[in-house]
């Protein structure tokens, strides 16, 4: 087994206890929180008999330790259980219904943030302490400290209400049908050759992804700038300059390439922040993704759904960070595990 394969395997094994610790913490916190899920489900007018019956059906009449063991056993069988409210749909189905929306938003916001970050960071590093540099650095601080709902609302007002050129909420026009296969509307529209669907999905995606992307771009701007400055002052760049390599080639082929490792690290770290930001963005734009879904289910104390969703997120974050580590190794031959 190569060292990389061994590393991947170890990381995967290590993520198992991590997920169980998280699962236990979530399980305990949900039960410590005041609020009776059964009452929240059936409404305050329900009779005692109705409450008891539902408590039994949901297994909430058992002692806590037994509920915990039941839950862990079902997770081991990869059974996320059923939601406790509104039709008791399987948690995995609920996740699969909502996750594509979050994924689509996150990916597009990620592209926006990295794009803005690289362009502004690069411009900023070309002439340090120039007017351009100072303004872009200020931009990065402002962008990072912007409150997502505030920026979202400003964009909604400008492009939705005043100019009326972009939609303010939702994922697609209600007048356009998209046949879903992956749940990612852009991909689905391409797969089904639905031009109308593609256009509406992109239009609805623009404002939310710009909102989230701009806020997250500040980090990249600063990182690209400092990383580029480091690289540009390195000996090998000076040597290349001395050899008369054209500036463009120097910047893009040699400097940016080498400055990319810390940026890649940041991309991995930013992933969980991206998901957290997606929650706020989803609420602002009524985007039917995981964020709004999770918030709503926490309010209703839908134990199984909240637990399942958090386990899902934990798995996702650990897989992404593992993937980032693997990409390092592939990009930079010096990195060995």
């Amino acid at each position, binding site marked *: 087994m190569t060292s990389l394969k061994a590393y991947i395997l170890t990381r995967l094994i290590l993520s198992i206890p991590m997920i169980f610790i998280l699962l236990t913490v979530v399980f305990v916190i949900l039960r410590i929180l005041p609020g*009776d899920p059964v009452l929240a489900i059936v409404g305050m007018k329900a009779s005692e008999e109705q409450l008891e019956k539902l408590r039994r059906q949901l297994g909430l009449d058992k002692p806590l330790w037994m509920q915990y063991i039941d839950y862990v056993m079902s997770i081991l069988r990869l059974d996320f259980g059923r939601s406790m409210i509104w039709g008791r749909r399987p948690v995995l189905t609920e996740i699969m219904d909502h996750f594509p929306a979050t994924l689509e938003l996150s990916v597009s916001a990620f592209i926006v943030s990295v794009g803005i970050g*690289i362009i502004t960071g690069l411009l900023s590093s070309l002439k340090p302490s120039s007017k351009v540099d100072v303004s872009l650095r200020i931009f990065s601080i402002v962008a990072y400290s912007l409150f997502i709902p505030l920026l979202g609302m400003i964009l909604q007002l400008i492009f*939705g209400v005043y100019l*009326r050129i972009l*939609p303010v909420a939702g994922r697609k026009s209600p007048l356009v049908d998209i046949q879903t296969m992956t749940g990612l509307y852009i991909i689905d529209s391409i797969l089904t050759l639905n031009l109308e669907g593609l256009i509406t999905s992109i239009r609805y995606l623009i404002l939310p992804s710009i909102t989230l992307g701009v806020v997250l771009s500040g980090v990249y701007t600063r990182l690209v700038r400092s990383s580029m400055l480091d690289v540009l002052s390195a000996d090998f760049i000076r040597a290349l300059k001395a050899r008369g390599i054209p500036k463009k080639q120097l910047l893009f082929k040699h400097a940016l390439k080498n400055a990319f490792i810390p940026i890649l690290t940041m991309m991995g770290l930013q992933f969980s922040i991206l998901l957290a930001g997606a929650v706020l963005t989803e609420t602002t734009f009524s985007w*039917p993704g995981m964020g709004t879904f999770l918030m709503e289910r926490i309010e209703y104390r839908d134990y199984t759904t909240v637990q399942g969703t958090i386990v899902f997120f934990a798995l996702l974050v650990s897989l992404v960070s593992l993937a980032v580590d693997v990409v390092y190794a592939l990009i930079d031959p010096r990195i060995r595990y």
Partner: protein
Amino acid sequence: MARTTLIAIIVAVVIIAVAAGYFLMQKPSEITPPPEEKPPEEKVIIIGTTDKVTDLDPAMAYDFFTWEVLSNVGEGFFKYEPETLELVPGLAESYEVQEGGKVWILKLRKGLKFRDGTELTAEAAKWSIERVARIEGDPAWFVTDFVDKVEVVDKYTLKITLFQPVAFYKAVLAVPTYFPISPNSYPADEISPDNTAGGIGPYYIEKFVRDQELVLKANPNYYEKPKTDKIIIKFYKDATALRLAIESGEIDIAWRTLNPSDIVDLKKKEDLQVIEGKGAFIRYIVFNSRIPPLDNKLVRQALAAALDRKAIVDKVFLGTVTPLYSLVPAGMWGHIDAFKDKYGEGPNYDLAKQLLQQAGYSETNKLKIELWYTPSHYGSTEADVAAVIKESWEKTGMVEVEIKSAEWSTYIELTRGQGLPVTLYGWYPDYLDPDNFLFPFLHTDSNRWLGKPYSNPDLDVILEEAQVETDKSKRADLYAEAQRILADDAPIVPIFQGKLFIVAKKNVKGIVLDPYMLLRYWLIYKE
């Protein structure tokens, strides 16, 4: 090489995204044709709401919005005539009441079919009612509390025998829980929460994507043709998003629930209309008379007298609600302004001070109470409601109020369990009859959900009598007496009655807002 490719891909994607964005912004009209540009044969109305669909099964649904959807994709034996509270035949073309109101004979319309082709027969109707009782969902009590047995007389005639005569049973028969559904589309013994089959109504559900959209199409099997072929309901997360959607022209109608300030602002928009209607939902304060010092009637009366309803209506709701002086909403038969008769329009600080003094309180020995509210269940205005109530009570100089709050699931748990001294609650009626505004609150065996705040055997007798009395004027007298007792004992104090507001584009017509409160989509059309 790999890094260069990666950078190239990223740059290309950004450029494409920017170019696409620019292109799309340049030609908005060509990209999404507004509804009116659709082919004329299909008329579409888009309604935005912050509500959500819970369980699309009449045996389980028990919330305002899901009932609204069910009322548009199904129908009961009776239905409310728009603009009035009169119950007219729905799927039952005629009916007969026997044995002093104990037996109901319903003759169904012939030739109606469910979406799956099954014919509407007495057998299907019986199956639907018995299914509700079997499943024992949240609204099962509409059947189990009243119905002894359901029998099929002939193919189109149904006989319902009640345990005892119920004066308002016709209204109960109109609730969605009684809507006939097809035995071939719903399981007999279990809930079918995402079932889009529906009953027999003006529309059927063409598509339902939870949290996103619900598409309804005119039902060719229904006996009347809706004015609009297709209704699309879009779901929004909050009032702000809903407001932006109507302002940007994305939707034709913004229905529940905009903030009071949004309604005031949108009234000024030239391209929009704000339609106002009477609502039958009420808000009230519950004094738990088992908890000292609220076990003292004088204390409850003093607080009832010092309540400044006008300040709540004007300051918090900007005039979008009206003060209420009984639990029975104004405009409903049987209503009397019991609290106004007893305490005046309010706030009546002189009377409040006098009562507090009688109860042993003074400016140096203040009455100390906790006032509880829940921050989001009744909208974002709730904290302000609590603050204004505190202010009005403290103006007596003899009361000190501590405001406390809890999230909804905790709030109702605390109310039912240990009991909270003073709480704020609201009520959407199940059926339109004074009984539904008095019995669940005041009858000893029925108000456990409010933490059993009150018990009065004399009042219990009056309420029970009013339930079985079939003479409407006698019932009105009984309810008037019940409301006077309520005002005197003051275990629950009404605050205000809600109005209904819809913001719509100027060319949208046919919106009926009446105390039934559920929007009838089939009457709405665009000019």
